[in-house]
């Protein structure tokens, strides 16, 4: 078994530099790599180009990096539950590239799986396709979208083992598995690091080969963005 375990978040982020491109797993605030984000805030890395479906809220998630003006560019599908994001975007401090959510997922998967580009129908005929190559297959139009290139992918799983095998929980799975192995270095933080051999080989969502470093995360807040409930009858 090849060990991917590192002692802590500091070791997990070794090699992180200003102006790099990072992927962050998560949908809204669900399944985000809280420890990696907190450490990036602490070390103050600047000029980041971030690939993440969302941009957090003002005081949590990637919003924390925005507060510190650590991000130069966001590539996302949905943003702006976030005043500071809006301010930086409208003032031009922050470059924002909005792309369809399925395109975002598949550009990650393409990078993971060694595909240079994919043809997707999403965005054809819209400004998302402007300047991009388009092509007809069987009477339907597609846009050529390229695999992402990133330096680090920060993902968060529910359980993992020293071999880097990951299991996600519920919809906290989202983009996390698609980003594993999609950057030069994939850093996984887990709620529970279990002994090798305790995960069923049949039930692993991401085999360890896609993960470079794994560590036991701490103090997960797991904030809920839209707490919606029904009344007990």
């Amino acid at each position: 078994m090849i060990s991917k375990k590192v002692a802590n978040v500091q070791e997990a982020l070794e090699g992180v530099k200003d102006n790099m491109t990072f992927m962050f797993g998560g949908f809204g605030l669900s399944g985000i790599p809280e420890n990696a984000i907190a450490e990036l805030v602490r070390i103050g890395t600047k000029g980041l180009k971030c690939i993440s479906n969302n941009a957090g809220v003002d005081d949590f998630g990637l919003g924390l990096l925005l507060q510190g003006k650590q991000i130069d560019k966001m590539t996302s599908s949905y943003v702006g539950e976030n005043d500071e994001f809006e301010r930086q975007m409208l003032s031009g401090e922050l470059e924002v590239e909005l792309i369809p959510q399925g395109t975002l997922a598949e550009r990650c998967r393409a990078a993971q799986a060694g595909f240079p580009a994919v043809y997707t129908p999403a965005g054809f005929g819209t400004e998302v396709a402007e300047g991009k190559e388009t092509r007809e297959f069987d009477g339907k139009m597609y846009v050529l979208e390229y695999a992402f290139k990133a330096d680090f992918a920060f993902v968060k799983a529910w359980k993992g083992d020293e071999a880097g095998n990951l299991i996600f929980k519920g919809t906290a799975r989202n983009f996390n598995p698609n980003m594993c192995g999609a950057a030069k270095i994939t850093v996984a933080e887990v709620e529970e690091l279990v002994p090798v051999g305790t995960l069923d080989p049949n039930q692993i969502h991401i085999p360890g080969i896609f993960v470079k470093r794994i560590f036991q995360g701490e103090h997960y807040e797991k904030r809920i963005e839209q707490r919606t409930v029904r009344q007990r009858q």
Partner: protein
Amino acid sequence: MLDKNGIAKRIAKEVQDGYYVNLGIGIPTLVANYVRDDIEVEFQSENGVLGMGPFPFEGEEDADIINAGKQTITTLPGASFFDSATSFSMIRGQHVDLTILGAMEVAENGDIANWKIPGKMVKGMGGAMDLVASAENIIVAMMHTNRAGASKLLKQCSLPLTGVGCVKKVVTNMAVLEVTNKGFKLLERAPDVSVEDIKKATEGELIIDGEIPEMDI
């Protein structure tokens, strides 16, 4: 004239037994409340869940189980969770039978604009562009006119598009319309709304063929 719940109620009648349905944020979310009890339907949310149930009871919310609107949800027996790429495989691969979403504008050729108003803060398209580019069956739920009273059913969209020629049906507070290659074909009127009212509120080509029945909701 219908209110939002009325629109949702009318759209719910379009949902058929055995359908996998993706509901957008806003009025579409309400549709789930009105689907008949005697048919089997599963709701997909593009963040990675199939088989969504109602909102959780207070105290039972789970930060790891949300819908695409980031609301806490529950799942029903037979549900499954999956990653985002798989979720859009369901959508792009046309395994989802019906997509219901809101719009700012719909054009008579089926173009839809629902993600961006130039000059205003843009939140993004989320999964909407994937949904409209792939779904075979798209119903738009929206008000017939905007707050200023201007029609949202247009000859051409004025806002940046979300997708081209993709909308099949529109249900508004005033009418049910089918998008045909000749324009909006009026199928039904809302209670207390006349064909004349709909004509006035529709900028795009409106096809009125024979008697237009009132909605049965």
